[in-house]
């Protein structure tokens, strides 16, 4: 079997050389996404029943949590810490670890969507709070239940549009 032994990446990325955030148990981000999905659904319900102040406040809290994950890294998110201290000791060891960059990028996507809802809500467009929560719910639910990685998809589309990945140093999980 003379297949190539080590399969070096044709384009070794600079990211590998720099100190990265520690790798994560892939179940951690999915655990967090499940909690987020439930809370986003509550925002949708509150918004639909006309409890717009409560919906707005909860979405603002969720946006702040997304900001935490996006800027501090998915591993230091409160749900990540909860997972590490309470849930993971009760589970078997993970089959593999994953890089922190993809779920951290996904937190940034969630931040963008929820902040849009918060800003539009502040501007008086109250239904936008429920709509933004609904959009973010779809992504969080697909992530939690189906292990779907919206960030992987979006990141590639941004690369293709020429917005990301042009320079020699990649944007490491902003």
């Amino acid at each position, binding site marked *: 079997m003379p297949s190539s032994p080590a399969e070096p990446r044709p384009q070794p990325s600079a990211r590998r050389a720099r100190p990265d955030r520690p790798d994560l148990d892939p179940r951690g981000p999915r655990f967090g996404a499940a909690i987020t999905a439930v809370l986003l659904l509550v925002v949708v319900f509150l918004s639909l*029943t006309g409890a717009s102040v409560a919906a707005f406040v909860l979405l603002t809290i969720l946006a702040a949590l997304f900001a935490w994950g996006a800027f501090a890294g998915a591993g230091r998110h409160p749900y990540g810490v909860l997972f590490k201290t309470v849930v993971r000791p009760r589970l078997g060891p993970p089959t593999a670890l994953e890089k922190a960059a993809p779920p951290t990028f996904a937190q940034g996507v969630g931040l963008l969507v929820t902040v849009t809802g918060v800003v539009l809500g502040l501007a008086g467009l109250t239904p936008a709070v429920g709509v933004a929560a609904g959009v973010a719910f779809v992504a969080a639910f697909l992530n939690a239940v189906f292990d*779907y990685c919206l960030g992987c998809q979006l990141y590639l589309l941004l690369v*293709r549009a020429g917005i990301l990945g042009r320079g020699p140093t990649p944007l490491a999980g902003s």
Partner: protein
Amino acid sequence: MSSTSALILVLVLVSGTTVLGLFWRSRQGRPIVVNPAAPEALGVPDALTPADVSSRVPFGANATLVQFSTSHCARCPGTQVLLAGLARSRPGVAHLDVDLTHRRDLANRFGILQTPTTLILDGTGQVRARIGGVPNRAGVLRQLDDLTGSSHAQFAR
């Protein structure tokens, strides 16, 4: 809106998302066989060479698994391990992992919409199948057995 109708709408949202997820999952990882008569459908030339994907690793004599990844792809490292193992289990099969993070040209050329995406090439570099998402192990092995002309049942698991 009354709580009842709000609750119904919430349930519609949950079930709609579930259907979307099931549909997505049913399409993930299955090799889509490329019609040899119409390789242009993929936007690729008749046969690829290692230079086309900026690879210094030579293609396999029987088949090559070309994996496209990015640095922000959660499932790519696992796919890398899976495909490298499958390539080793069959004679003359190479696996290479192309990082698209800084290769917008390659992403556009091959029309990659998600990572990982894997192309299965035959010994001449012709694209024979394309897989979106984490590849299905049995599906890849079937393709490789077709291309290597072997059926190593003992390796099938």
